[in-house]
């Protein structure tokens, strides 16, 4: 099942099921009012709600895609954890320990959104890192690699925009936390619909030129290891996002008016615009 958060003229942001006919809104199904809380309720009550969600195709009419605008399907995650997992790396390259860094909900934008790059001096550049995002089901703590899927509600596409340059003092990780620097979407595909998530293929484009292409199987730190590692350190809660790293190569500096897309087989394609701003950076 594909879940989207969408907006339509005259309608507050609403979750819906995406299918071949369009979007079928989940009207009246959720008690929470704020979208992120609605998602968390949807995750925590999914088994109970499932029959009603499945019957939407019969009981409701679909809104055509032309009439809706997608919003980020995880609009204000409690945490975004970006792992340092690397795919398709040169086997001769030294192996780095798996780690992760935090981003906040301020970084989130969705399909068709604009990444606003802060103005920074010439020592700095920003690069898009395409990857798979796990939408967590929690609370999940000390999950074993074997049981990793117990912590997974679904999957989405993520662009973890990273800052590069003067790495002294770790300023790169701070700049990468700026507002709008973590696009995700266009939808959440529930875990049951992804046959083998450990083999998903991720591709990204920068202005129609293929930038990154990799399988999430092509790594020393697979999805099971990443979930186990994350939950060794902390608790994942429903609606948190684990961005599962990116390919070692193919990251090119972003320029004003660029367009970046990431596509994951079976999930969808997320496209955002890049805008250089005069907003002072850190």
């Amino acid at each position, binding site marked *: 099942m594909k879940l989207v958060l969408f907006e339509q003229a005259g309608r507050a942001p609403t979750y819906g099921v995406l299918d071949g006919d369009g979007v079928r809104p989940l009207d009246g199904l959720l008690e929470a009012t*704020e979208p992120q*809380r609605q998602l968390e309720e949807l995750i925590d009550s999914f088994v109970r709600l499932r029959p009603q969600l499945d019957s939407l195709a019969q009981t409701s009419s679909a809104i055509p895609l032309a009439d809706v605008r997608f919003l980020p399907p995880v609009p204000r995650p409690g945490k975004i954890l970006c792992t340092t997992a690397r795919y398709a790396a040169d086997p001769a390259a030294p192996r780095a320990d798996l780690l992760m860094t935090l981003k906040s909900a301020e970084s989130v934008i969705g399909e068709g959104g604009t990444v606003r790059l802060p103005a920074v001096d010439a020592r700095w550049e920003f690069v898009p890192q395409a990857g798979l995002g796990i939408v967590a089901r929690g609370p999940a703590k000390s999950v074993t690699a074997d049981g990793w899927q117990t912590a997974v509600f679904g999957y989405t596409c993520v662009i973890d925009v990273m800052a590069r340059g003067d790495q002294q*003092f770790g300023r790169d990780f701070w700049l990468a*936390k700026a*507002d709008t620097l973590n696009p995700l979407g266009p939808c959440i595909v529930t875990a049951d619909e992804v046959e083998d998530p450990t083999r998903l293929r991720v591709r990204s484009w920068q202005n129609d030129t293929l930038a990154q292409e990799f399988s999430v199987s092509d790594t020393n730190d697979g999805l099971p290891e990443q979930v186990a590692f994350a939950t060794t*350190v*902390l608790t994942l809660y429903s609606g948190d996002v684990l961005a599962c790293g990116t390919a070692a190569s193919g990251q090119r500096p972003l320029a004003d008016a660029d367009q970046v897309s990431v596509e994951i087989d079976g999930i969808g394609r997320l496209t955002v615009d890049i805008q250089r701003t005069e*907003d002072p950076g850190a």
Partner: protein
Amino acid sequence: MKLALFSDATSAEVRPGILTEQGIVDASAVVPPGPTAQGRMETLIDEFESVREPLERLATTGPARPLDEVRLRAPLPRPSKVMCCIANYWEHAQREARPLNMFLKNPDAVVGPGDTIELPNFTVPWMFMHEAELAIVLKGPARAVPEADWRRAVFGYTAMMDITGRGEGRSTWGRGTWLGKSFDTFLPLGPCIVTADEIADPNDLWVQFWNDGQLRHNYHTDDMEHRVPELIAFASRTLTLRSGDVICCGTNHEGLGPVQDGERLEILIHGIGRMALTVRDPLQRTWERGIYMGQDSVNHEAVRRNKPQEAHLLHQAGSD
């Protein structure tokens, strides 16, 4: 005004209150409702001016319960983000100012007064240490706040322990990512929020911290390398600050030390309040008790012992 969250033996409900000399006054009837305790505090921050008078009246007329009858909770149980300064104290050394930088700490790691800090069942970090910090409670949304307008983004202040897993020496485990600071329960916050009007200058506060009664941190916020107005300007250049978010100002590392099973950690910021927690370690690891004196310690005695050639660069503590 000192605002707090509390619960008692009769109910798990977390309620807002006002801390007074006599104890805690239940402010549930005056503070607007919220979806969660955090949400309620955020609403209180946003609407504070409209409830200030009834709260002040309540503080003088309402029944106060002694603190030993209730359990104080973290005054912000789940901020949307906790931004922490890296280093940021001069530590009495003569050198150039280091560039200001921050990281995000796991906001789900918040615990409060009387809670337990659980060391992880994970042995890659070689030691776990305490840091004692002044924490700024923010009022938002605030973006690109000029230094001169810093007070507009500040609601109040509280105290924070930045519990940290170390990689080598006193370097935080997870080089560059600061992940060693994001284990569950590594973010003690409290005991209350002191509203900004009660703190004339956040760079004129005295921070003390004890481990099992042994004084470890003991410094003034006057020693900050980048002061509070600059921190607000810096953070809001990168991120939109929200009501109930927290900026932690960093620590003076001269008093760093290990934390281990069974210890009682206590922080006091004069003018804000005092909070104590205990430590539990399922692996019962032990380290030498006392201030960390390793090769990279900035404690003055350690510097004289480990790096005598640098000792002349130390000011006398308290002389500047």
